[in-house]
């Protein structure tokens, strides 16, 4: 079974170390939650896995199926099976959701092993509509410019729509719950739940526990100061919900200030 392995990862931004030796193994079919206070490197981790050029990996490795992705550009990593649902999705003026997604689907087919022909317009329309139904989205979304003028909820729903259409081996959801009301969280989570399964490993990065009421994690990790400091079951997230992060800071923050 394919695994996403993050092995002793160290990441710097403009020379400042942010991630300082992080280890995580995600198998397909598993849901991992990574929780932690703000500024602890959660989004840096997400961007680093996806291959953002501003994030410099100074040590360690990221592997899929035993193969390092460090030399791959973001598009290759995507085609290798990694998906990142952005905390702040970017708008692309003039490019419709449908056109964008069709281009993405075709890129996967063209560079696949073996390469496949482009998806037919009819087949793509069917695919898109079925995924929109899943996320309770109006079909008119397909004709709107990507994220342009979308509300927070619409943006996040569109991220999950992309996840549904591209069906990656591993999905990283970066604060997908932030800025959403409870209904939107429910719809987005139900979408993720419908997609996850033996063919997809999911990493839910979140500050708050509430999304985990909908997306049940198999493992919960607490991230602090660039490392995973505690790992456990769902109970760990409930503890954080009740007691907050102060005890984490007390337990693991001392070394920094000493």
């Amino acid at each position, binding site marked *: 079974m394919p695994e996403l392995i993050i092995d002793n990862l160290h990441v710097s931004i403009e020379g400042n170390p942010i991630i300082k030796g992080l280890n995580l193994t995600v198998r397909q079919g598993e849901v991992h939650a990574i929780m932690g206070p703000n500024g602890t490197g959660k989004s840096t981790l997400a961007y680093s896995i996806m291959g*953002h050029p501003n994030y410099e990996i100074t040590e360690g490795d990221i592997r899929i199926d035993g193969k390092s992705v460090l030399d791959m*550009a*973001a598009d290759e990593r995507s*085609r290798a099976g990694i*998906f990142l649902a952005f905390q702040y999705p970017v708008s692309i003026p003039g*490019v419709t959701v449908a056109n964008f997604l069709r281009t*993405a689907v075709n890129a996967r087919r063209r*560079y696949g092993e073996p390469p496949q022909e482009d998806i037919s317009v009819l087949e793509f329309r069917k695919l898109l509509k079925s995924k929109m139904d899943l996320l309770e989205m109006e079909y008119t979304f397909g004709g709107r410019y990507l994220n342009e003028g979308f509300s927070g909820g619409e943006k996040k729903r569109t991220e999950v729509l992309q996840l549904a259409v*591209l069906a990656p081996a591993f999905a990283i959801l970066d604060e997908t719950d932030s800025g959403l009301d409870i209904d939107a969280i429910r719809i987005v989570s139900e979408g993720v739940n419908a997609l996850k399964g033996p063919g997809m490993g999911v990493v839910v990065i979140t500050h708050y526990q509430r999304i985990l009421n909908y997306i049940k994690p198999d493992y919960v990790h607490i991230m602090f100061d660039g490392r995973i400091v505690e790992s456990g079951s769902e109970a760990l997230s409930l503890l954080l919900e009740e007691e907050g992060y102060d005890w984490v800071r007390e337990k693991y923050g001392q070394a920094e200030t000493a």
Partner: protein
Amino acid sequence: MTNANQSVVIKSSSRKRNELAEFSFPQEMVNQSDHSQIRGYHQAAWEAYQRLPFPTLRDEPWRRTDIRGLATDKFTIPENGFRSDPPARLLDPVIIGEEPSGRIVSGALEASCQLDESLAQQGVIFTHFALAEEKYPQLVGNLLGKIVAPDEDKFTALAAALGQDGVFLYVPKNVVIEQPLHSLYWGAGEDTAFINHLLLWLEDGASVTFVHESSSATSDDRSQVFHDGIVEIFVGQNARLTFVELQSWGRNVWSMTRERARVMGDGNLEWVFGAMGTHLTKNFSDIDLAEPGAMARMSGFYFTNGNQHLDHDTQQNHLAENTTSDLLYKGALLDASRSVWQGMIYVAPGADGTDGYQANRNLILSKQARADSIPGLEILADDVRCTHGATVGKIDENELFYLLSRGIPRKEAEQLIVMGFFAPIMARIPIEGVQNRFKEAITEKMAER
């Protein structure tokens, strides 16, 4: 890369070469029509051409466009019968679905003019320019030079004096043409000159859509081709004209064009302008909103690569009360290409209630490319609303990363962003076939990288 431009610049190290030589076109080429107005127009233009100096970098509109490399004395105008076949796709109907109302093919190929019989019976004239001067001298003679004065500058004068190729379109009062008209002007050869004149005249209440394409063989830059043109447009009261111009000239073409439209009371002009080709372009496009209620929208796009230099100079003249203009020019630039857009909204004294808008947006796709964007306002009335904006930007790295993260390779992602950038202009093009032409051209240039 070697090209004629650079080789001439080397010669120009001696100061004398900075002066352009006169063209070697003989005076006998000036139309000696039996009709006195037509003969007089061309004769006066020829005299103006001889009298006027070439523009130089010291002239404000030409400050950013250096034409000293133009091999003026080398050009000849091809004899009648000079033939070269355009690529078949250009002859594909650009108007998809239904037959155009009329079609003109001219230039370096066998000229042909077609017009729907019922329109001809209503008095519509849509024909080759020289043929129009021959067949309808009274009408053409009355209209020539009414919009563009032949002595505005040396190139305009030359085009007025010698322009025989081109299109004459006349739509009588209240005649509404449903299907678009199409013309293709095809140039070819080396050291040749193509000089043409478009005269589009819509009487009150007339309505038509006209698509005009100029194109020539893509050639290396070793020799030059010269294009000189005039476009005169009259939109009568309550008349509506949609005019789409597409130029995909070859890469050895130096093009100088002077275009102007006059829009009368409650008339409406939709003017779309697309530029892909030429080595160098200097284009003047003006609208005169001459009577109350006149309205014009100008939509331009250009996409350059290599060492192309495209210079578009626009003028929105509000000459009467309650007139509206809206200009949007968008350009993308690759390699070491360069664009200049200089635009002016002028509001005459008393032209109250003017609503004028202009925007120029540029997307720079390489470190060596450069876009100059110079908006301008000159307002001599009190009650007006004029806004303008000009931007020069690069592809946003965050947009690019977002597309990459979905598995789209960098080049395709950039192409997607460029297509998206042009989408607002595409939306203003009323004909799908024209949109497709433009999309193909973008795809080709993006693939050349």
